């Protein structure tokens, strides 16, 4: 229990630091929201000052931060300076798209990666194993934006098989999800394969075999369960990676999620939107890490006992 409380405490501390860093980074970046909206050449200085005052941008940065956090803690994320809509509504719209995309990629990465890794390990040296190793190497070495451009050129422009961008229907999800899933799928497959191979050679596997336990039962009940520890651990890391890649993939495929919204907001210095999105992304990463650690502890009894010894 104390471990859980400690992890949550860390999570809160990290969130506080993340909010501070993102808030400050946006404010110290050159330029301001006011000059994105009003052309300084054509606007009298007093009008610019008045507008700054309206937005609270003339206050010292620490005071802006305190005001902002006070509002955030009350659930008020402010209004977008450009869309002029409540930030909460904007993010809610975009979050749905990001969650759908990330979930689709996650399902592809783990739903296909784990079985592929297991089958490759069980057929080590066979044709399937060789193909998997080749494909995963290729996907891991090709940057995902290059893969995106290749898929767009071949499946979209040349073959007219899939829509290349936008979010007008379910088919629009396929290309971005494939691109987003390529790297995590490769990693999941490889980690699973290595873990299964390792478990297949372990002493307990030999013992089970000697006791006449069926191969199917050994592989899927004992080996897979033990091999899953690094895969689960990888899962929480992969969520962070997926979120990072989502920014690029959403921009390339014009997928209207949080990633493309964050890029736009930063470029335009739409502070309320950029701050809220950065905060939310940090929250997702922190939750993923915390849940990942807790899950790992649940799956692997050695971690529990080590922590018990340490504490």
């Amino acid at each position, binding site marked *: 229990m104390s471990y859980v409380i400690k992890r949550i405490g860390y999570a809160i501390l990290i969130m506080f630091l993340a909010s501070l860093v993102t808030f400050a980074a946006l404010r110290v970046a*050159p330029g301001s929201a006011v000059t994105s909206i009003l052309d300084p050449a054509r606007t*009298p200085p007093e009008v610019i000052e008045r507008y700054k005052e309206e937005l609270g941008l003339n206050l010292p940065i620490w005071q802006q931060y305190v005001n902002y956090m006070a509002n955030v803690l009350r659930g008020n994320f402010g209004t977008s300076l450009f869309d002029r809509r409540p930030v909460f509504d*904007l993010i809610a719209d975009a979050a749905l798209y990001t969650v759908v995309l990330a979930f689709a990629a996650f399902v592809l990465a783990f739903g296909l990666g784990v079985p592929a890794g297991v089958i490759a390990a069980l057929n080590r040296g066979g044709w399937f194993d060789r193909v998997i190793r080749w494909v995963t190497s290729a996907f891991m070495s090709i940057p995902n934006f290059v893969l995106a451009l290749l898929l767009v050129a071949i499946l979209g422009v040349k073959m007219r098989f899939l829509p290349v961008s936008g979010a007008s229907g379910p088919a629009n999800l396929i290309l971005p999800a494939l691109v987003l899933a390529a790297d995590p799928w490769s990693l999941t497959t490889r980690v699973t394969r290595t873990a299964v191979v390792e478990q297949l050679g372990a002493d307990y596997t030999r013992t089970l075999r000697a006791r006449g336990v069926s191969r199917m039962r050994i592989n899927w009940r004992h080996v897979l369960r033990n091999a899953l520890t690094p895969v689960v651990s990888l899962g929480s890391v992969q969520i962070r990676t997926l979120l990072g890649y989502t920014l690029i993939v959403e921009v390339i495929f014009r997928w209207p999620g949080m990633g493309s919204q964050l890029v736009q907001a930063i470029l335009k210095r739409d502070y309320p939107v950029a701050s809220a999105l950065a905060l939310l992304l940090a929250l997702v990463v922190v939750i993923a890490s915390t849940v990942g650690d807790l899950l790992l502890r649940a799956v692997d009894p050695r971690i529990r006992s080590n922590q018990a010894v340490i504490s």
Partner: protein
Amino acid sequence: MSEDQQDLRKNIKAYTEGTLTRRSFLTKMAAMGVGAAAAGSLLAACSSNSGGTSSSSAPASDSASASASASASASASAAPVSGGIFKEGYDRAPTPPDPVRNAWADPDFNAFYEALVVRDPQAAIVPALASAFANNGTNWTFELRDGLSFHSGAKCTPEIVVKDMNLFRDPNVGQNGIFWTPVTSITNKGQQIIVATAHPFAAFQETITTEYSYILNPAAREKAGDKYGAEVIDGTGPFELDSFSTNEVKAKRWESYPGSVTPFFSNKGKAYLDGITWVSITEASQRANEIETSNVDAIKNPPPQDVDRLKGNADLVVQEFQELSNFFLSVNIGNKELGFDDLRVRQAISQAIDREGIVQSIFLGHAAATYGPVMPGYVWYNPAVEQYNQYNPDSAAKLLDDAGWKLGTDGVREKGGKKLSFTTIQHPDTVEQQVMQAVVEMLKAVGIDMKAQVLDDAAFYPKLTPDLTSYAFKWLWSSPIDVVALFIDFYQPKSPQLDEVNAAFAEWQNAADTDGLKAAAFKVQELVAKQLQIIPLYTPNTIWVNRNNVMGWAPNQANLYPFYNDVWLAK
């Protein structure tokens, strides 16, 4: 119907019936003064009716009228069909359309709003909300049409138009108040709106036709506050706001639209389209992909390297002409340390730049080198500018030598221990970055060490002051002389070197008629080309691509964006 129109229809009929070949059709169109772009649109229109396909290309020199007549004729060649959503890929992120406060106008302005008067494709001023207008010395008068209203149902009265104009000219409110400074009062007498000016002000025609003079309901704007443009738009245009976001703007047909009297619109009633969606596609190659895969119906500005491929696509119509823009390099004429106050140094920089090389290698010919501050396609372009600023690196080197900037051992010139080394700032546009990289190399060849720093809008504009050493920028504005005056007057420090050009700008602003405007425009261009308060580089072609089932969408050189009254989608 004029003789030309009769001939046009006869040829279209012959082509659709198969008695006229494509080549003969194009030849006949050329003989009638219809450019390739226009003829291409016609062919596309004919093809979509006859089941065939076609595409076209247009040289940069094609006239603005070509596209417009193409559109009008295309519409005339088949009965327009109502319905459908027209999806247009736009090269920027849209801003909430508000003629009073916006620093930038997007294409949706032409759907939501209308002006009192508008430019036709030949750049002549023609009626829109005003049925007639006149310029009588120090008075401009506009006769507002009867029976006009806003989307909300509120009446559009002369009193409201007066109120709008007072908002536009108030520098504390109107983003473009500076262009209204000669205006002393705005009143109305019945349906007549009278704009009194301190002196003859023919250049007011430039101001009144920009998107920033489009008429809106000021009461709705005031009531909506910051939400105006994003949640509420109350204009008189043929479309109403459906939804706004910085990714996508949606408009729906305004069913109570009272119609238009604008002569170059063939549709005088309500719009054909059910709606329009403007989609922000900021990456140029992505725009090309999306038009090719039918994700959108039209786009603006695919990347230069994709233009030929798009022209070869039988499902697409490609039109291009010079944009109402110019990309220039500016060096601070008050900077003595770097010698920018010395005309010879500015001339050296200018002559070291191979503009034609840039046009051919980076734009693949889809741009025009500019030796004066406005594009060669401008209605009052002065060809005399071409005697200045021609590429001549030897002359550039000599000018620098004469100015005392001697080549150092590191290949960079210096004078009195000061290196001729500086940084210029620019926007993150991909093509503009390529251009500036080329310019950096060209200047290096004559011993000038220039670095190009890329800044996004929010960081760029605050640096844009008369103290800035150097910047590169592309303006996009329907009144070139006004905008050149703005850049020179606002971002160069006060200097006697501006006296002559400022006097020419004053002549422009005081001109009483078109002849006076033309004379002043000529003078401004030659002075800038000679004295280089800004160093002009090139004007890109604006390239418009539409799928060949899109009819009546007629971008033209006189307006920044096409109008939507005539647009319809063939089945």
